[in-house]
């Protein structure tokens, strides 16, 4: 087990990168604490898998270094790093039995046979494949195959970290929930450093202590699920996390007030911004219907009743503002006014969040 440090890490798949857009992974400094569970969240093609493959040693980064504790492993082979990795699609050795599959990583490392036997049985118990241990892996369902892949990832006790590359993509929804819970329990039990790549926010938020959000080859925010929800560092995080995502309005700011289409919004804090694109962001959870004549005038486009609550989609001079109201709330049919919860409004300059001065 080890602390993993990324120092000035960057990677480009082209051999001669000219500008920033040639980089699949832009310059990155980060420390993965020993024993934590991380989720790496981001849309497809944002560099998540690249980062994972660099950590596991399947890919050598074009710039920067990786340290395991104080040991430089930048150019070290996968085998020297002692890392386990589970891939998006199940990888099983077809001609082997389930048991042989699970034992394979240990056997290749010439571990004592009696230990292998005990360990394989233990893992099989955890992932629930005890009954099929002596079956050939080939005939199993995709679910079961992926369980075996997960099992093979966890069978070694001494690994520095376990990396998961969207491991639940092919799993049925109800199994997903079960496996995720099992993984979480396993993490608490084994205390390995785990890095879990996903583009599914629910998966990331339920699995991880800390979520690392990536966008366009950059890490845009690292934080606890609450931090990501309440104080998104970047407009992308606000938009990507939450359902529906954060509302953004392009405004002009003077002191404590934001101005848009002759309306004024009280921000609570003092901002001094002179140039750049200024936006305010607010989560739909913190927008409510105004019961008096104040607030932003909007046209109601659609109301979606999702059971526990209603999502109201409105139009404010061409910009969509969504809000979430309880399912018992009566929503007017055409137009209404909206209020924002003052403390939940975030201000963004060119996409990045700025802190205001408290008054």
């Amino acid at each position, binding site marked *: 087990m080890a602390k993993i440090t990324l120092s000035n890490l960057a990677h480009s798949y082209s051999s001669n990168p000219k500008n920033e857009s040639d980089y699949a992974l832009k310059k990155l400094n980060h420390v993965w604490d020993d024993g934590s569970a991380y989720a790496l969240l981001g849309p497809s093609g944002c560099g998540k898998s690249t980062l994972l*493959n660099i950590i596991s040693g399947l890919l050598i980064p074009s710039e920067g270094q990786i340290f395991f504790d104080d040991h430089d492993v930048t150019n070290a082979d996968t085998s020297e790093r002692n890392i386990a990795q589970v891939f998006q699609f199940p990888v099983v050795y077809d001609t082997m039995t389930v048991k042989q599959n699970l034992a*394979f990583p240990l056997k290749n490392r010439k571990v004592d046979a009696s230990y292998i036997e005990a360990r394989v049985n233990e893992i099989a118990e955890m992932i629930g494949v005890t009954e099929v241990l002596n079956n050939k892996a080939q005939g199993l369902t995709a679910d079961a195959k992926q369980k075996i892949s997960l099992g093979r990832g966890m069978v070694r006790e001494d690994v520095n970290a376990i990396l998961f590359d969207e491991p639940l993509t092919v799993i049925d929804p109800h199994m997903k929930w079960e496996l995720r819970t099992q993984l979480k329990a396993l993490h608490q039990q084994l205390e390995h450093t785990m890095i879990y790549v996903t583009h599914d926010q629910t998966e990331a938020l339920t699995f991880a202590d800390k979520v690392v959000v990536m966008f366009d080859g950059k890490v845009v925010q690292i934080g606890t699920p609450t931090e990501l929800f309440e104080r998104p560092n970047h407009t992308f995080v606000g938009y990507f996390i939450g359902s529906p995502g954060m509302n953004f309005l392009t405004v002009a700011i003077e002191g404590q007030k934001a101005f848009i289409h002759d309306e004024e919004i009280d921000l609570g804090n003092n901002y001094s911004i002179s140039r750049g694109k200024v936006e305010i962001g607010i989560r739909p959870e913190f927008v409510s219907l105004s019961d008096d004549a104040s607030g932003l005038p909007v046209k109601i486009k659609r109301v979606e009743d999702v059971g526990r609550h209603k999502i109201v989609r409105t139009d404010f001079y061409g910009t969509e503002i969504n809000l979430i109201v309880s399912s018992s709330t009566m929503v007017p049919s055409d137009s209404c006014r909206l209020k924002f919860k003052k403390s939940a409004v975030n201000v963004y300059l060119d996409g990045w969040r700025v802190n205001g001065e408290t008054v």
Partner: protein
Amino acid sequence: MNKTVNQKAWFLVLPVLVLVAFSAVIPLMTVVNYSVQDTFGNNIFYWVGLEWFEEILNSERIHNALGRQIIFTSIIMLIEIPLGIFIALQMPKKNGLWSSLCLVLIALPLLIPWNVVGTIWQIFGRIDIGLLGYSLNALGIDYNYVQNPLHAWITIIVMDVWHWTSLVVLLCYAGLQSIPDAYYQAAKIDQASRINIFRYIELPKMAGVLLIASLLRFMDSFMIYTEPFVLTGGGPGNVTTFLSIDLVKMAIGQFDLGPAAAFSLMYFLVILLISWVFFTVMTNLDKKEGV
């Protein structure tokens, strides 16, 4: 809803039936016809029953040809299948100019007409003007495929390997290309050795194409005619006379239509039978592994 019964639809199948009858059924039946009759010319035939079949089954000449055929097919398969796998494994995995170039080079022998292949090797091996034959003799090796039976065999086998290994390579290469990267990555993580990667990932994934490759190589080599005929003409003596060369000698050289017809029918059935056994055994093996 009731379906309307309309037997007139059978007429739509008629063109195909006529075509198949003319191109396959009637010629085959002619052969069957010849195999049970004897003739002294003038289109006068006598019924002889299964006499020709008996004669062929008891003919030492045919036994020897069959023996040579089996030895030949076994040798070339034992060389071509492993060699094909080996070469396919050495091919570049990434798609690019280099891999395309390799593919074209590998595929070249397959594009050469069979009798041209025979001619190429016939000249190549000649001791007076052939590059191979002349060089070997200049090196002091007494190589002469026209007179020495062993040399004739070696030349024919090398020629067949040269001509047909490419087919095995191409099929195996296709099989290898279909293995997702994740398998190799997982193997790396699991610290599998090169041999284990081959044994547990590449070979199982290639099993399907290998079955096809083996079947094709078996059928083709069991029926081989053109190349050895051009190269050695079945000689020296009879040592490279394989089944089909013998058959042609019998049918066209000696004009023994009856025995030749009986021979070709059995030849056809043997190939059919062995291919069927081959295929059933291999697919069953596949299924058993799937349990």
